[in-house]
């Protein structure tokens, strides 16, 4: 089996040590770092798809993500100078809204976004609406992701959008909402930009949104 194939397999299997060793081997063999990252990204996307089909479970996906992160850390110095050639997916500030302590759904989305190349700032649970915005401004985020698991905390998602409007910042961020009781109808009612019914779809929707956003930005320049 080729080094790259074995590396992708090791990451998918969550074998971090083996993956790091294979990545070192790949770099020693002067393989193109960007090609390695692209193969790993494709591999981890497959892990997400398998999780969605319940062929694997969250522990396996988390171990794969951990292996991916450790491998990317090793590859990072080799990517210096090539970053402009690598597609920047976007920066996301994510959290569960104020008064809501549920995290698992948000954590899965954050994990999948991160391993798919987004830069993710996870603010954790029980996050005040203004704190989402302040952090998004601070890190120059493209996307604000707000999760709510309770019907009585869902208004917190709407508050973020209301505050953005009142602060004159609505167009600065793509706001995506999710969580078990959250529906497309609710997302439309509060004026969110997107909603996804699960983590894999969230990644695809936000990738598309970022492409459109960039296209729009270029068109208006």
């Amino acid at each position, binding site marked *: 089996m080729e080094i790259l194939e074995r590396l992708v397999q090791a990451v998918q299997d969550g074998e971090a040590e083996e993956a790091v060793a294979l990545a070192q081997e790949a770099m020693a063999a002067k393989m193109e770092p960007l090609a390695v990252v692209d193969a790993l990204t494709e591999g981890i996307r497959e892990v997400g798809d398998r999780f969605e089909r319940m062929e694997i*479970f*969250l522990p396996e996906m988390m171990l794969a993500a951990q292996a991916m992160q450790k491998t990317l850390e090793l590859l990072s110095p080799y990517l210096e100078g090539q970053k402009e050639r690598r597609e920047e997916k976007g920066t996301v500030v994510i959290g569960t809204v104020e*008064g809501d302590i549920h*995290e*698992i759904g948000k954590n899965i989305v954050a994990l999948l976004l991160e391993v798919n190349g987004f830069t993710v700032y996870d603010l954790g649970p029980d996050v005040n609406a203004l704190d989402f915005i302040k952090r998004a401004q601070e890190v120059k985020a493209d996307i604000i992701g707000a999760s709510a698991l*309770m*019907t*009585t905390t869902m208004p917190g998602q709407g508050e973020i959008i209301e505050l953005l409007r009142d602060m004159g910042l609505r167009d600065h961020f793509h706001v995506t909402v999710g969580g078990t*009781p959250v529906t497309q109808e609710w997302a439309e009612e509060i004026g969110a930009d997107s909603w996804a019914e699960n983590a894999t779809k969230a990644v695809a929707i936000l990738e598309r949104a970022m492409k459109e956003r960039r296209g729009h930005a270029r068109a208006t320049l």
Partner: protein
Amino acid sequence: MPAPPYKMWEILERARTGPFCEDEPFIMERFMPQLKAVIRKYGIEYDPATPVPSDDHLADALWRAGLEFFLEVGVLCVDTHRIITFEEGEVKEALYLVPGEYLVGSGKDARLLKHRPVEDTNPPFVIFSPDITCDEELFSPLSIAYLKEPLADGVCAPILEESMGLKIKAQTPTELAGSIEHAMSLRQAAKLVGRPGIFLVAAGTAESDIAQISISHSDWGVRTSDSRLVGALTELKIDNALLNKVAHYQQFGCFAGSLTGPIYGGYAGRAEGTAILQVAYHLMGLLVHQAHYQMNFPFHIHYTSNSSRELLWVISASHQAIARNSKLISFSNGFLNAGPATEMVLYEAAAHALASTVSGANLWEAAVAHNKYKNRATPLEARMAAEVGHACAHMNLTREGANELVQKIVAKYEERVADAPLGSLFSECYDVAKAVPRKEYLDLYARVKDDLIEMGLEFPY
């Protein structure tokens, strides 16, 4: 025998003084590896051919695995980053002190809530609960409809999203208002239907600790003969707000229920891990929640339901483990895929009730339509579960017999779990003013019941 609390202040103090641990290492380095280790050590294995297993060795191995896992992992307080840990002797002492029964509710409506053994011939205690949110104007009719159900031993009302037309937001004055409206309206509804002392679990609208504390009142609010719930964070975690509820329930003097829902496909992984976590959550409920009973709803991470084959196994196996090795009182909460007025939801309710009742659980029925849609639940789904639960006890059904029936019932819907029909709204299925079901749904109900009789189920009436 005394009821909880058991060493409450000594245990709660551990949330401040226990070993330091952050969230991620708690799951990645403690929870997941320990769970994997006990699955292997005790040889726990899910068998899709037996959603209702009859293997006592499996049940006892699950109990030992759950106990060992709980002792090794403990419960993380995410506010203090400290792990609440236990000695085995403490767990055994607390289990020894469990009385196994409580008189709940009051006056003529009081009922005995009891621990049930596996294959118990006494019917389950059934709490009727829509488990969903509703429009403000539907709160009373929905509550009355559930309270009217003859087999309801207790009732838990729907959750309000608005109060006085204002959107309720947790931890704000609107939540306090909504919680008071919930408690008062439910109390009034119980009185109107002639069951003023029925065991009420309230108030689901009160998500926060302050809202729960605001409705403790022996006249208009939650009484000491009633109950309320305290939850956990995913998985085996808690925070100070939840601990506030724990302390308040004991000090106020009402019955406390431990509300936990291990996620199949989540950190616990497959059916084996989810079942072990169920056992551990029962111990957490006794020792951290200081609960008089456990109310649990293991659910599928994608579908938010527990009527599929693997989840029925989790429910059955874990309840057998608990029933055989403790006197804990446990409720099995049905989470169904389809919505009201569909054949599928009634079959799902029947399968959930059978797997739970024969395994030693009481029933809490039912969250329907993936527990996601407002106004989309009716008492008839709960009635089907209750009738099937009573039938199971009435006909002295064995686990083998229940397994055969569950196999037949599950075959009716398991292909449609992912795209289950959403069904109808309460207002479409019921005459709202009278709070009674419409003929169409009653006819459908009768057809499904006839089919269950055809399959071999013997209803008491």
